[in-house]
């Protein structure tokens, strides 16, 4: 690891001004489970690391009237075991519970999983399906962007210099909806998604799908909404055939690469399999039979 300066501010303003003052190479540190290996391998060499875990806003994990607030520095294990998250947002609990190992989840954060901007981020597709919003703070104040707009390329986000994620806010889930996330990994645990799919279905009183969301991991430069798959589903009654078509659309929409973890063809195929499986899981959660 290259030498660097370390700061542990106690307020958001302090954190932002430290980051802004040190320029674009400075890095906020939350769980460190992605940042420290990159620094160890000297892939990045930040002159300043700002430990943001002491900033109270970033440690907030609470279900309030306007939805669920997940501070950027809350460890994944806290989120995965939080009673309100388990009850109201099982897709978030499940995807947070999939990342790495127990040890990784005790340090790694949702903020890090999002802002590290790797295509394989397990927690992001579920948040995208739920329409989650990211609250950012920077030198020119606070702003809110949709979680699905945060990542713009591998390792790249919309965050400007000195800007950092404060929290992710998720509205209360609509009535009659279910969401799930599945990923494929060669190992059962301690692994990274070859492909991941989250889907959300809201079904109205007539049994028609009023809202569908499908989001994909590890099959494009960023986590990706599969909008054509959503269109195929919306307004329809869920059938085996419809699920198959939506899954096929999702596979067609992804833009995977071939690398050591899997070929593009295999990833595309996995998207179809996982999309089908999550949609069926949602059906089951909604108590509907095919």
């Amino acid at each position, binding site marked *: 690891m290259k030498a660097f300066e370390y700061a542990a501010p106690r307020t958001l303003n302090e954190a932002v001004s430290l980051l802004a003052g040190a320029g674009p190479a400075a890095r906020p540190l939350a769980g460190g489970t992605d940042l420290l290996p990159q620094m160890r391998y000297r892939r990045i060499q930040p002159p300043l690391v700002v430990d943001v875990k002491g900033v109270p806003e970033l440690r907030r994990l609470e279900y309030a009237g306007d939805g669920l607030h997940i501070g950027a520095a809350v460890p994944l294990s806290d989120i995965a075991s939080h009673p309100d998250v388990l009850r109201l947002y099982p897709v978030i609990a499940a995807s947070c519970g999939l990342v790495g190992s127990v040890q990784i989840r005790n340090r790694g954060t949702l903020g890090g999983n999002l802002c590290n901007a790797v295509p394989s981020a397990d927690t992001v597709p579920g948040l995208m399906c739920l329409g989650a919003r990211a609250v950012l703070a920077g030198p020119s104040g606070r702003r809110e962007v949709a979680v699905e707009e945060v990542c713009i390329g591998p390792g790249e986000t919309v965050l400007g210099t000195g800007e950092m994620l404060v929290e992710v806010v998720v509205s209360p889930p609509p009535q009659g909806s279910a969401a799930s996330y599945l990923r*494929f990994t*060669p190992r059962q*645990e*301690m692994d990274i998604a070859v492909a991941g799919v989250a889907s959300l279905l809201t079904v109205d009183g007539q049994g028609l799908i009023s809202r569908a969301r499908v989001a994909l991991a590890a099959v494009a430069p960023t986590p990706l909404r599969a909008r054509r798959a959503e269109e195929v589903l919306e307004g329809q009654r869920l059938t085996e055939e419809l699920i198959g078509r939506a899954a096929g659309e999702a596979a067609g929409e992804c833009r995977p690469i071939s*690398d050591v973890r899997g*070929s593009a063809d*295999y990833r595309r195929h996995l998207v179809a399999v996982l999309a089908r499986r999550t949609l069926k899981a949602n059906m089951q959660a909604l108590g509907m039979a095919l």
Partner: protein
Amino acid sequence: MSAKFIGERLPRVDAPDRVTGRAVYAADIHLPGMLHGRVLRSPHAHARIKRIDFTKALALEGVKAVVTSADLPPMTGEPILVRGEIELNLNHIRQVALAQDKVLFHGQAVAAVAATDPHTAEDALELIEVDYEPLPAVLDAEEAMRQDAPLIHPDQYTHTHEGNLDRPSNIAATYTFGRGDVEEGFREADVVVEDTFRTRVVHQGYLEPSAAVAQVEPNGHITVWASTQGNFSLRGQLASVLEVPSSRIKVVPVEVGGGFGGKLNTLLELPAVLLSRKTGRPVKLVMSREEVLRATYPAPATVITVKAGATREGSLTAIYMRAVFDAGAFPIAPVVAAYFTGLAPYKVPHLKFEGCEVVTNKPKIGALRAPGAPQASFAVESQMDLLAEKLSIDPLELRRRNAAEEGDPPPVGRPFNRIGLQPLLEQVARHPAWTAPLKGTHRGRGLALAFWPGAIMPSSCHLTLQDDGSFSLVLGSVDLTGTRTVMLQVAAQELGMDPSQIRVSVGDTDSVGHTEVSGGSRITYTMSAAVHRACMNMLEQLRERAAAELEVDAGELEYEAGTFRSRTSPEKQLSLADLGRQSLRRGGPVTATGTTTRLQSAPAFAAHVVDVEVDPETGQVKVLKYTAFQDVGKAVNPTQVEGQIQGGAVQGLGWALMEGYQFSDSGVLQNATMLDYKTPTATDVPFIDAVIVEVPASDGPYGIRGVGEAPIVPPLPALANAIHQATGVRLRELPMSPEAVFMALQKARG
């Protein structure tokens, strides 16, 4: 004497230290004034080193020295070091440790830095300037064999049984063996199968990264603490390369965090000694995991073709095997082992083997648990199942009909002495692992056999009677797998003493006789013979002393549980405590040594049965149940025997399903982390049911056979056979990753 300690599940004597963090491994050593080193590694797979300039590195505050191969004496002695069954080419090993003129694989060590702390040493690496002239690299063994391939060693001429060929080649050596006439055998066959099987480079995956500490004193004496499988072998390698007498090097034992064959050759010790010599201070070098994966001694990639013929009744008539071993940057690969291990389980009248080892611009390969055998058995045992299928014979039955017995000729060497293959297969045939029906869809059961001859090589120990009648037993072998505990059991058995009265430790290279590496499943077999001899010798000496003290004839004394007693006048007795005390007044301290050099081989066979379920949509293979049968001769400590079998089986499962080096076109390892070089986690495997079969070996004490190697072998073909039964698809390439299985299924579906 009643068998009291042989066969007991004695807990490991070293376990309390390991479970509390007290056990000391090489990286835990801290010496006053110690410096920390880091190694600069090649960014090219093949390049000429034109210039190395480390002035800037030396100028960095805290940096104390930089060394390169220029700091080694030129190689003048004989480069081949023969250690029992192991042959080391020191000229190659020293170049892996520090490149000379050329780099031959990505990650090869080029220089090493010592500084006051490891971070400063790492900073200094960036300040070393190396000019490379990149050369064309060749990464695939079959491509390297072509006449127009870039030559890795322009002075390498293919070694054959008839002498060297006359044109330089990347083919380092060819081997041919056989008996009978395979063409005749194939004509006699009713069914003949022929296929080619491919395996990738895999790593031992020991948890402890390589580490070494060296201290060179002003008088030139060298002390080394190292993560090595052989303290004496390491000393010999260092002595030869550094051209100093062995007597001036002392290797001090430390605990070793796994080796599996990967810690036989010196790596970090050479630069550590050179750095210590230059600075006059102790120097510690510890590898990162990335360095371990890129630049140690992994196991070879292979291409093995097996053609096998059998009669309608299921008698094997002929087997032809062709094996290409990718040795990596320097030769010496277990080519012949592929032949004698893969085909050893079977009686086959006609055999032919053609093998070769080829150099490529990849890390030099080393040993990994049963070197050569897993790759060979992957091919042979897959073909046995294919034959069984074509002949409509049960796969176990086909193997039983052809299983080798005592007196049968193995592929090379003398006829088998007592072996337990047939009794082993009888056990399988009766066991629910094989007989219970496998219910459910997409499920399959696979069987495969393995053979390991067991290494021999010298072993030594020193036994001392203490002044209070207790004993100290010092072993020359590195304790990789519980040797101290097992030898405690042997000594307690033979001395008739409670284990609490015997302290067993591993000696440094100054304190005990030469003992070869802990490897090849040889230590329990050979060291127990050495300890047995030391105990016999000790008791003989004590009997003489007791006879003199008691003024009786030595033959009149009987010995039991620490006391010599006259048979005729039982009141005449003397305890070991008495003898210990008296030894300081009369006769002198009593010591005994035990050594072994040659024993007969104690061949071991294993048979594994695995049940799998395949997800046809993803290709994921779930291991449902795993049963490993092995003839261990005599299990001195059944718990440890089971542990060896279970660990070996899971290592094999990893090789079968998920492990494999992936190189870029320019020879850079793409999966140099434990995230992407995947070894099984606890969630990937079931309990491993180890079934111990005991057919005593012909030689050595108690009928012991070595255990450690064989269990890694059968998982590769057993999984392939199970996947075939579950899906109808036959995989001939490793790893059988989900993607590979899925793609094969896709192909089969058309």
